[in-house]
């Protein structure tokens, strides 16, 4: 098993008391594509960050088991984590530009990611970086390699992050809203690339997304989160016909191109869901 999460709890101490954010999440992932969808603020990003041990210091975290490829994350040292992060496991963060270094060119950052794990000369690394940028469908990759993060568009920044995370051939890719800033054609190409890595190299994918149709078409399984818990887990292909009232409610809120709605239905949140 690539990822095992059992009964994960995450919470924060604030002025007004202790606030739990993740309340007993359990998930497993092999060499497959698992989607996580659900309410904004339900703990999707926190769950992913916990797996990479990337939570702020004062965070309270407990779990019966939290493991990457058999390695216990709860007890792993920072040194052990550095062997995993960005090498064995890539993590595409929700705010891509924020995670790029503003004072270094894009090319040098992608090259660095490649070189740290693959070695070789600077020149080789820069060439590899340009090939990677090409792979994520960046037009004029040479020019973009020489640009700084503030000089590229939202979707270009997102693709640079993807290129960086794919550089070391990771075994696991955690992608938090990786394609939310991409137009449909580029999105389709990027997903095709990720699909290849999953099926040819046996990579595992944890895809966090708000795009229910996308997850349903692209992933194998999907977990639906609400208020810090997993409401249900089902085959991704069955997502659009899910039965849980929360998931049904979500589906109902979606605008549609072909079946326009005068006004969008909103979700009535039922305390019963948390029982």
């Amino acid at each position, binding site marked *: 098993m690539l990822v095992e999460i059992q009964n994960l709890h995450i919470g*924060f101490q604030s*002025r*007004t008391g202790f606030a739990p954010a993740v309340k007993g999440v359990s998930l497993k992932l092999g060499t497959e594509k698992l989607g996580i*969808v*659900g*309410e*904004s*603020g*339900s703990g999707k*990003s926190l769950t992913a960050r916990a797996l990479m041990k990337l939570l*702020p210091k004062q965070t309270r975290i407990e779990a019966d088991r939290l493991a990457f490829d058999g390695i216990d994350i709860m007890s792993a040292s920072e040194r052990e984590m550095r062997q995993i992060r960005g090498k064995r496991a890539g993590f595409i963060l*929700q*705010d891509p*530009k*924020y995670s790029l270094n503003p004072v270094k060119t894009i090319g040098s950052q992608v090259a660095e990611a490649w070189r740290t794990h693959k070695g070789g000369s600077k020149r080789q690394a820069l060439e590899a970086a340009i090939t990677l940028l090409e792979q994520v469908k960046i*037009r004029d990759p040479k020019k973009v390699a020489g640009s700084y993060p503030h*000089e*590229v*568009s*939202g*979707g*270009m*920044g997102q*693709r640079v992050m993807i290129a960086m995370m794919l550089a070391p051939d990771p075994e696991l890719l955690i992608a*938090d*809203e990786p394609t*939310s*800033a*991409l*137009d*449909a*054609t*580029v*999105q*389709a190409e990027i997903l095709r690339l990720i699909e290849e890595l999953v099926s040819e190299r046996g990579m595992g994918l944890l895809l966090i997304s*708000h795009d*229910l*149709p*996308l997850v*349903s*078409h692209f992933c194998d399984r999907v977990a639906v989160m609400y208020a810090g818990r997993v409401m249900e887990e089902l085959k*991704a*292909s069955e*997502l*659009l*016909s899910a039965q849980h009232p929360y998931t049904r*409610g*979500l589906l109902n*809120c*979606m*605008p*549609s*191109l*072909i079946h*326009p709605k005068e*006004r*969008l*239905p*909103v*979700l009535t949140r039922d305390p019963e869901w948390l029982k």
Partner: protein
Amino acid sequence: MTIEIDNLRISFGDKEVVKGVSFKVAQGASFGIVGESGSGKSTVLRAMAGLNNHWSGRIAFSGEDAPLKRPPAFFRKVQMVFQDPYGSLHPRQTIDRILSELPLVHGMNDIDARIARVLSAVALPQSARFRFPHQLSGGQRQRVAIARALIAEPQVLLLDEPTSALDVSVQAEILNLLADLRVEQNLTYVMVSHNLSVISHLCSHVGVMIDGHMVEQVTAEDLRLGNVQHAHTRELRTLSVELEEPA
């Protein structure tokens, strides 16, 4: 306010990235922009918002040409919601401070009540008020960015991917809120989004951009029906329709 954009050109150094874009938006209407990543959509909005001084052509609000350097009152009337909410929220300021800024600058009264109202309008708990941006989820940050634009009671909203980080239930609440505000206060919107369902829900007209050009303008109705001319528009539509079909 009506909006008129005529032959807008924008360059960074010697690289032209917006190459003669023109469109019109009637008062109280919404215009959507879709298109290739890197085609210049955000750059057009930023120039409209007065955040870029390297443009030529014509940008006019209510028939009046906007000068390169906008007067302070302009920034109350025209507000922009940025594509990258994290980057546009000051990391060391609480949400309360971030939301107070515009009302303070413009000498508005009842700031406290305004903040409370705008937070609930974007479905954020009042407890979010004294947190810092990094203590919120991605979607919560995006809602703060929307709240900040709304609190100044603008007449024009320029929205760059305003719902891309929101789950569909919160997205529905925000889209309904935007639709209501438009009716109640006769607001005018220009919205960039990659999601054709979202665009066609809120906007009656849609422009499609590739490589600095607006290659096609269609009504939302024609986009729905597939009455489109340009190959890129057709491709975007096909991919969107395919996704809507069950897997």
